[in-house]
């Protein structure tokens, strides 16, 4: 329980770093840290495979992509303007309300007794069998999504080369 609060606090702190730091490189590092700590939470929730994939895919690939773009453009730190647009203010208020509501909802709800986990829950085998039976269609569609992403990204990025 103490471990959970410790990790939760660290996660929130690094999430705040992402949003608050002016230098995008630090934001990216905060993001890596957040994702890594969420992976730790996954381990505590008996989802070891998902946790490792989280590290490989997010920390090892997606954030690297962010870092590449930051370095590719090599932009200066953003000059922070105090002005937040009206939509932004309204949105922020809404977000706060939403967070409070979710939190209250999650806490007030009767804690139904945690069910006994069957042996092997969260194991690679079980997950893979679910993924390749129930999730078959989504799995194939995923490949199409990735194909579209590759083609789209290459087309967009190469347009820059020619111009």
């Amino acid at each position: 329980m103490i471990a959970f609060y410790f990790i939760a606090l660290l996660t929130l702190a690094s999430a705040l770093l992402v949003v608050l730091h002016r230098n995008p490189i630090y934001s990216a590092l905060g993001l890596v840290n957040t994702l890594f700590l969420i992976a730790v939470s996954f381990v505590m929730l008996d989802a070891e495979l998902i946790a490792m994939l989280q590290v490989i895919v997010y920390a090892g690939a997606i954030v690297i992509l962010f870092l590449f773009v930051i370095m590719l453009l090599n932009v200066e730190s953003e000059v922070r303007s105090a002005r937040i647009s009206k939509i932004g203010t309204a949105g922020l208020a809404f977000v706060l309300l939403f967070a409070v509501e979710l939190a209250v909802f999650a806490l007030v709800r009767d804690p139904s007794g945690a069910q006994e986990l069957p042996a092997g829950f969260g194991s690679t085998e079980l997950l893979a069998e679910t993924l390749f039976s129930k999730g078959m269609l989504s799995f194939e569609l995923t490949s199409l999504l990735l194909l579209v992403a590759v083609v789209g990204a290459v087309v967009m990025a190469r347009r820059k080369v020619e111009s």
Partner: protein
Amino acid sequence: MDLLISFVLALVALLILLQLTVLLLWVERKGSALIQDRVGANRANLFGGLLPFNLGIVNTLMADPLKLFHKEDVIPKDADKFLHWLAPFIAVLPLFVTFAVVPFGDVLVIGDRVINLQAANVNVGLLFVLGMVSLGVYGVVIGGWASNSRYAFLGGVRGSAQMISYEIGMGLALVAVVLTYGTLDLQQIAREQGKLMWGVIPAWGVFYQPLALVLFFIAGIAESKRPPFDLPEAESELVAGFYTEYSGSKQSMFMMSDFIEVAIVAALVTTLFFGGWQVPYLQRDGFHFPGGFFVGVPSLVVTILQVVSFLVKLFIFCWLQILVRWTYPRMRYDQLMNLGWKRLLPIGLANVVVTAVLVLALEGFTIK
């Protein structure tokens, strides 16, 4: 008690790794001297060379780190101080931890307590290794960016693009290995290799997956940024690449991360393709030679033999990488990228598909 045991195991894994890297530093110098017909490092000695024999190895092991640790830590004035500190730390930490999931022996039996000789018996160990290796890119990227130097920046960009390109080849080679053994647990994979093929040949991964071994070895060398793939730190072009602006112990961390990667590649090659800690024909109670000969060996001796076998194999593959380093000239960047994307990736994919079809076809006929 359990905590104490896992602490000791973690310490042992870390010490194996550290000793090996420092030893490799010396072996690399002596090895290059051997290949280039020189004498090599022979100056560091105890008692001013009064002893009749050369203590060079011991002292090179001590002298190098001690010298580097006593150098001044220089941070360039325009550098981002925090990131400059973070980069060597983040380059080395995931690599240190990787060794925790590598099994260096079967089990140690003390009284009625059976200890698994592996710092952390994670059952998705192989993915853990991949994840940690992929985190290694951050050290390069951040180190290159934080120094605020052109050479470092170029080296960092080159290095990260190279590392991510070869990670895919590495991943595909490992998928084929997982297909063969059907598990991600490294200890389990090592145990599987204790079986025999046709009662004679040890069932090591190299006999099932020779192509995956080659792919993995190439990708591993490229991943560790050593020659012939050392473009990120090519001396003649980029001074020292992403760690140009580092000195003292922080620079030695980057140097060390190279050697740790060598050790990790060797450890994985050993574990996945050459039986890990397996000694041919040695079971837990003794040698079972083909033809029914049996030589009983006490359990403690078996464990020691296995650990020694692991270390010997580990060292052989480290040495092989050093040989490769001093044999091949550096590649051009386009050749490097071509090899990664146009050779390793398609061959790796084909290997996975062929393996899957073969396994299904053969096992379908023999077992069911």
